[in-house]
Structures are given as structure tokens and as C-alpha cells.
């Protein structure tokens, strides 16, 4: 029982980070049908920003601001220099464009800083443990889940209540109709990229607090899981992204913990098993859990 609860907490921790990233991916897909493989690079940007900030004597309390601001900036910038010019191109072209940006980002950090990991100190309390009824928690678990919950709540409010959020949802459903209502195309797309950047920034904060280091390829692993989470949920669906992220996080953890019980020696194949399940899922339900009817129309 303790083992189960423990792994649920772990799974939700990882899963909520996936969810934040998947939410950004699904948001961008909604407004321009781009599966943004460069989205994970925003984590890298945030990590390097905090590395430099720390080099110049920054304090931990300001770190989140720096990380989020840099991720927002980078996200808006990618739209401005690259995606804007292929906005009407095929999804294939859009996807490869984002891949190119991902490669470029790797290369730039390797050349500008170093191919090697650059570590910086972390706040001392992150891995402090405390117990509630036999289950030991780390402070970071609580922080992760609380921050994610707050961010998701804030996201829900923005997209339910604010004019910006409603415009983005409208534009995601029918871009031309939104333009006819006076929504400025460039502004709503930039806004969506900024928001996705902020979500990635929050994710980056959580990642960096756990392992305070910057590395050129650190975004890629997160990205792949996040893309898969977004597609599992149904690209374009907000709820789907969150559900997809959490499911993937739980699946990750539970398979690692429980697979050896089912079949001895199989724990080393846990990732393979998870990916097999995912592949099987896509065969059965290619459009994801929450099918978005208008996602097909271009």
C-alpha cells in the first residue's frame, strides 16, 4: 500500500511536468497545426538562463522569474523568426521546421557554452523529507504538485474568463472566423506562443529545482514524452493534454515499480513496455482520448 501511494506521488510529480509541457504543445497545435518539437528547448533556455543568472550572483528566489521570462521570450522569438514564415505550409513542413530549430538550439548551446553539463547549486530544502502516515514525501513532491495545480487553475481561468483566452480558443476552432471578429492573427498566435512559453517556463523551474544543471540536449527527452502525452490526450484538447501527461507519468513510474513483480527481470524493459502500450493505443485510437473534431480541418 505504501509502495503504491509512494509511486502514485512520484508518478504525479513527473506526470504534472509532462502535463505542463503537453499543454503548451496542444495550445500551439490548436492555433496553427504545428506539432512543436522545439518546445522542449524552452526548458534548455530556462536552465541556461538560470545558470548565467547564478554565475552573476543571482538568488534562488528570483530564479523562477528569470526562467519563465526567458522561456516566454524564446517562445515568442521562434514564432517570429521561423514559424510565422511557414504558417500556411503543410503540417509536415511545420513539424520539420520545429525539428530544425531544435537542432539549432542544441548546436548553439554547445558552441556558446559547452557540450558538457553545467551545474549550479540548488536550494537546500528541496529534498528534505517528511512523513505523513508512513509515507515519506520530499518537499519537492509537494512543491511540484502544488505549483502544477496552481498553474493549471490559472490556465483554466485565463482560457475560460479572459478575452485573450477566449480569442485563442476561438482561433483554434476557426481561425478565419476569429479574424472576421476582429481578432488580430499575429497577436493571438504570438500570445499563444508566449503562454506556451510560460507553461514551459514553469515546467523548467520544477525540473531545474530537482536537478540544477544545464545541458544542451536536456529538453529533448522531456519533449518527446510531452508530445506523446499531448497526442495521447488528443492534440488540440486542453483536458486531453493534462490527462495524457498524468497518465504517461503514472505509467512511467508504475511500470518501473511493478513490472518486476509481474515478470522477473523485466524492469529494465519498462520504457519499452510503456512505448509498446502507447503504440498499441495509437492503433486503436489514432485521434487520442479526447477527439478534437476540428483539428482535421486545415
Amino acid at each position: 500500500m505504501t509502495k503504491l501511494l509512494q509511486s502514485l506521488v512520484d508518478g504525479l510529480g513527473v506526470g504534472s511536468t509532462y502535463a505542463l509541457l503537453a499543454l503548451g504543445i496542444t495550445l500551439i497545435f490548436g492555433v496553427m497545426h504545428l506539432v512543436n518539437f522545439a518546445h522542449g528547448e524552452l526548458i534548455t533556455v530556462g536552465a541556461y538562463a538560470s545558470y548565467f543568472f547564478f554565475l552573476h550572483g543571482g538568488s534562488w528566489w528570483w530564479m523562477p522569474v528569470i526562467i519563465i521570462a526567458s522561456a516566454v521570450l524564446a517562445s515568442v522569438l521562434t514564432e517570429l523568426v521561423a514559424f510565422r514564415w511557414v504558417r500556411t505550409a503543410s503540417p509536415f513542413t511545420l513539424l520539420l521546421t520545429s525539428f530544425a530549430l531544435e537542432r539549432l538550439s542544441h548546436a548553439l548551446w554547445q558552441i556558446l557554452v559547452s557540450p558538457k553539463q553545467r551545474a549550479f547549486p540548488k536550494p537546500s530544502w528541496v529534498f528534505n523529507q517528511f512523513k505523513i502516515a508512513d509515507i515519506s514525501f520530499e518537499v519537492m513532491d509537494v512543491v511540484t504538485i502544488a505549483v502544477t495545480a496552481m498553474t493549471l487553475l490559472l490556465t483554466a481561468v485565463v482560457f475560460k474568463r479572459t478575452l485573450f483566452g477566449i480569442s485563442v480558443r476561438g482561433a483554434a476552432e476557426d481561425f478565419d472566423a476569429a479574424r472576421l471578429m476582429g481578432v488580430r492573427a499575429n497577436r493571438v498566435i504570438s500570445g499563444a506562443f508566449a503562454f506556451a512559453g510560460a507553461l514551459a517556463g514553469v515546467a523548467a523551474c520544477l525540473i531545474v529545482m530537482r536537478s540544477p544543471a544545464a545541458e544542451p540536449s536536456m529538453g529533448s527527452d522531456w519533449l518527446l514524452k510531452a508530445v506523446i502525452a499531448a497526442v495521447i490526450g488528443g492534440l488540440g484538447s486542453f483536458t486531453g493534454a493534462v490527462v495524457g501527461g498524468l497518465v504517461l507519468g503514472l505509467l512511467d513510474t508504475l511500470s518501473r515499480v511493478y513490472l518486476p513483480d509481474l515478470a522477473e527481470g523485466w524492469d529494465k524493459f519498462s520504457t519499452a513496455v510503456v512505448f509498446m502500450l502507447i503504440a498499441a493505443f495509437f492503433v486503436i485510437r489514432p485521434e487520442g482520448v479526447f477527439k478534437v473534431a476540428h483539428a482535421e480541418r486545415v
Partner: protein
Amino acid sequence: MLEVDRITTRYGAITALHDASVSVNAGELVAIVGPNGAGKTTLLNTVAGLLRPATGSVRFDGNDITGAEPARLVRAGLALVPEHRRLFNDLTVEENLRLAGCTTKAHERRQRLDEASELFPVLRDKWTTSAGYLSGGEAQQLAIARALMSNPRLLLLDEPTLGLAPTLVDVVFDLLVRLREQGRTMLVVEQNATRALRLADRGYLLRSGRVVTTGTGAELAADSGLFDSFIGTAS
């Protein structure tokens, strides 16, 4: 108020509109009729900025607006109720209206929302329903209410009665009359040709992307050869 001067619009290889000229004066209701594929929707979409004409110009209040961004045109006072309504089905009625009010200030937007709920009592009852669940008549009223949120001086309507039951067609026509009484200028594309022409001050008949005939609404409606020219046997 609006002068469309000899515009030609193409979709890739398709020329949907040839040298079409249309004008609308302040306070008028102008009807555009013609068979499917005549280029009526293309004409409205070109005026509203969704399409860019290959040649020709569009002027609104004397300013050249050829190929301008729709968002700019809405701010200049021109709004389109698009073909098939194109509501945001995932958004509630209120959200549809708020989105459409994005060009106005917050207090003005609240005022317009109140006006809309007064003018369209049907919508008031469905305020928090997703637009996707509205019936055809409700949806059409929302589409018009949505276009009115920016308080346009010129309202373009594309097939506002398409797919509606006869009684609902009456509702929409009554609405057009009321809007005209409020002094709203309108350019309407309509499949109920005779009825729209009777209501209109002036009308244009389009066929194969060209303006074939023009005249006062009553003249065109009374023309016994309308059906023939409509379906093209006269040419």
C-alpha cells in the same frame, strides 16, 4: 460608403470573380443574388479581407481597403456574417459574443452584451450553452448578434437564411427590416432571391463571377426573366 471597383479574385487556378463592381450607399440595403458558384461569397469574402483580389480595388468611406486584414476592417466599421455562420461551437453563446467584442473597450463590450440579450431574447435563455448545441435559427441569430458586437456601420451577410425552416426565414427577414430601421447599412447575399430583392433598395445579379444585371430591388424582383437569367439559359 462601399465601392467595389472591378475586382477579380482567384483561388489558385480558379477565377471566381471577374471584374465585378458593386457599390453600397449609406443607409441602403443591397442584395446580391445569383446561382451557386456565381461568386457571391467570394465577393463578400474579398470585401471583408479574407481574400485578396488579383486586380481591382475596394474602398470603404473613401479609404482604400483592398486586401486589408479583416481585423483592421472590423475596427474600421465593417463586419461579415460568414456563410454557414461559422460560430465557435466549443464556446458558449456569451463567449462567442465577447470574442466578437474584442475590438471594443470593456465597458462598451458589457453594454453591447446587454443590447444583444435584449435584441435576441432566444440567446438570453441559452447564454451559457455551447454554440454547437444551438438550433439552426438560434445559431443564425447568434451569428448576426456576434457581427453586431463591433457596432459596424456596414454589415455584410452571407446567406443568412440558408438551411432554415420557413418560419425562421421570416424571423431573419424581420430582423433585417429592424436593422435597417436602426439605420444600419447592409449588403446581403441571399438565396431567397425574390424575397430579398423585394426588401432591398438595390440588387445585383451575379453569374459565373460576373455582374449580369443591376437595378432597384423591385425592378429585379418583378423581372419575369429573372429565373432564366438566374439559371443561365438566356446566355
